């Protein structure tokens, strides 16, 4: 229903000077589900893909068992769970089944038997997980295509994957991530310790429409698993999409999501006449929802108020039909003096955080490409931005890795992983 979502636009500068050239304006778009949207919890369909290679022996496998049992505890009878454990081979420990009391008893017995030994081959386990997830989705929808399936089955679906090492056949994991996207299954890819490929997990997260994160040590495993289930339980609206239409002469340079995580959603004007742009937004959770940051390039105009763009967000609430909420991006061109001094600090602080994120992401790519001078320059600038934002902890990590690079050493795996995953977090959720 249209009453399910509030869309609010906040401009970095509500008034801009009258110039003879184009100028850039920032606009924040806040998407918040209303109270009515959050009444019934959507059922969950979750598959856990767990690394049980030899290196997981000891604290890691113990905490992993605890984490899975805690997840089980938090599920309800309407939820579906499957568990796949892998080393060189994948084994379906728990085929897709409802988390009823009886189901839970059987599942926890199986989990307690989980032990660690062997190598690491992740792709077959991901494939098995998709197969198990499909068991819940497929039969209810008569084998229809992915989009139609999602329309008919409003469950919140996830693959949660944990690994501590380098897997064989990384390319096949990426293929599985693409398959997951096709099925509408976001993958949350967690890496623990120092020895896993952070670039691979980040790509798996991106390609599947999910995310990736760095689990620092065994004791953190249960918290990460809990958070994933809580986030699934907080989903209010699904299958959201952004559609923007601009006035003549206006262009949208980029769209970033800034909450819950920073990521680039779209770049450049699109659409047949260059005046429209679309981006899939995925799920919108209760409470804070999502926040987007738009960079709009606006043409010269005489003084006055203008609608420079229209923003429409469409979504599904449960199994109801698709609904849309629209909002205008209104800008005033003013010849008054001191117009430039008015800036909304909420928006501009997020612009600075996104800048820090872009610099760190680009610096990591430069390191991979062997372009160390570019990397150090960007990390230096990211450091300034982070300190300005009061993000002293991440700044310390960036400083330490900058020093490593300047002294001709390589980045530490832990430092690189921290930068890769913490740079996109506008709010630190660990150690809360």
């Amino acid at each position: 229903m249209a009453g399910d979502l509030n869309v609010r636009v906040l401009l970095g500068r509500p008034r801009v000077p009258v110039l003879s050239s184009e100028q850039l304006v920032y606009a924040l778009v806040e998407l918040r589900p209303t109270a009515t949207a959050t009444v019934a919890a959507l059922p969950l369909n979750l598959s856990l893909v767990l690394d049980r290679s030899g290196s997981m022996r000891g604290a890691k496998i113990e905490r992993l068992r605890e984490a899975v049992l805690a997840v089980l505890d938090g599920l309800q009878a309407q939820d579906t769970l499957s568990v796949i454990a892998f080393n060189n081979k994948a084994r379906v420990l728990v085929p897709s089944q409802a988390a009823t009391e009886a189901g839970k008893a059987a599942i926890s017995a199986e989990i307690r038997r989980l032990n660690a030994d062997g190598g690491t081959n992740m792709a077959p386990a991901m494939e098995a997980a998709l197969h198990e997830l499909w068991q819940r989705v497929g039969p209810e929808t008569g084998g229809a295509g992915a989009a139609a399936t999602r329309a008919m089955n409003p469950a919140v679906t996830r693959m949660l994957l944990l690994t501590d090492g380098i897997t064989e056949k990384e390319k096949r994991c990426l293929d599985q991530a693409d398959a997951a996207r096709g099925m509408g299954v976001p993958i949350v890819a967690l890496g623990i310790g120092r020895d896993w490929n952070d670039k691979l997990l980040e790509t798996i997260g991106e390609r599947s429409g999910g995310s990736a994160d760095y689990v620092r040590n065994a004791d953190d495993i249960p918290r990460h698993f809990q958070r994933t289930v809580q986030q699934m339980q907080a989903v209010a609206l699904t299958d959201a999409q952004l559609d923007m239409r601009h006035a003549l002469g206006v262009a949208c340079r980029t769209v970033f999501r800034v909450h819950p995580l920073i990521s680039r959603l779209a770049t450049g004007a699109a659409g047949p006449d260059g005046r429209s742009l679309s981006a899939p937004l995925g799920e919108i959770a209760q409470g804070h929802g999502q926040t987007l940051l738009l960079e709009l390039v606006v043409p010269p105009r005489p003084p006055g108020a203008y609608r420079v763009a229209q923003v429409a967000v469409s979504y599904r609430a449960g199994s109801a039909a698709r609904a849309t909420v629209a909002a205008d991006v209104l800008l005033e061109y003013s010849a008054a003096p001191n117009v430039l001094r008015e800036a909304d600090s909420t928006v501009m602080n997020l612009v600075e955080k996104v800048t820090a994120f872009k610099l760190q992401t680009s610096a990591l790519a430069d390191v991979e490409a062997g372009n160390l001078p570019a990397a150090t320059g960007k990390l230096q600038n990211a450091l300034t931005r982070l300190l300005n934002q009061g993000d002293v902890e991440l700044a310390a990590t960036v400083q330490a890795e900058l020093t490593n690079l300047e002294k001709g050493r390589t980045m530490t795996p832990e430092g690189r992983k921290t930068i890769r995953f913490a740079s996109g977090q506008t709010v630190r959720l660990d150690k809360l």
Partner: protein
Amino acid sequence: MIRCPRCNTELPAGVSFCDACGAPVRGPMPPASPVYQPLGAGGPPPLPPPVAASGPSACPVCGTPVIPGEAFCDNCGASLLTPNGNSAAYPAGPPPFAPPAGPPPFTPSPGPPPFAPAGGGSSPFGPPPVPLAPAPAPSAGGTAQPGRLIVTASRAELPLPTRDDVILGREDGQSNSFPDVDLNPHGGLEQGVSRRHARISRRNGQFYLEDLNSVNGTLHNQRRIPANTPVPLRPGDAIMLGRLGLTFQQ
């Protein structure tokens, strides 16, 4: 059929904004620029003369061309909005979503503010905010009024217990955290509120706010406060724990 009052494009009746130039079709007419000539046919209006430059057109650090209005150079990340390249112009953190009581710091005032410091420095974003009036003395012999916090997003009211030290945070049985004010029901976890985030204390009728070394920090009237340093708290003050906005009232 109607015509856009700004650029004369033909528009279907009932639209609020011109599809071509974006001007509002109904509502108060914005003042026309003296050099603006209405066009005979549709299309965007002619370019007016420039009134103000809006920052560098090339990054002062790396020389990459930049568009006026960009806050940071897309190539090297340098700040573009103050002459010496610092972004000290921005306050330490985002304000709560409701405007704080009192004059917003970034609107230029029509005349000199009554309490402006003599010859005071000017921040790039306008005259410094009017200093707050000193806190009223506590009423003699009576107990000071209890405080309360209003959650900005939901307008929920959270009364503060009348003890002298009130801890704000998130309840977590597993780690034995039981703050006096639990912000879990108000989105505390996802907005970065630590289990032990901040303290509101009261001494001689005056309230103080203190950050308890939280992970995501505490803002007082949009300024980040250093950890373990109590600052005076007055009715109407804006508090931000992580990203959760609150207003303090009595």
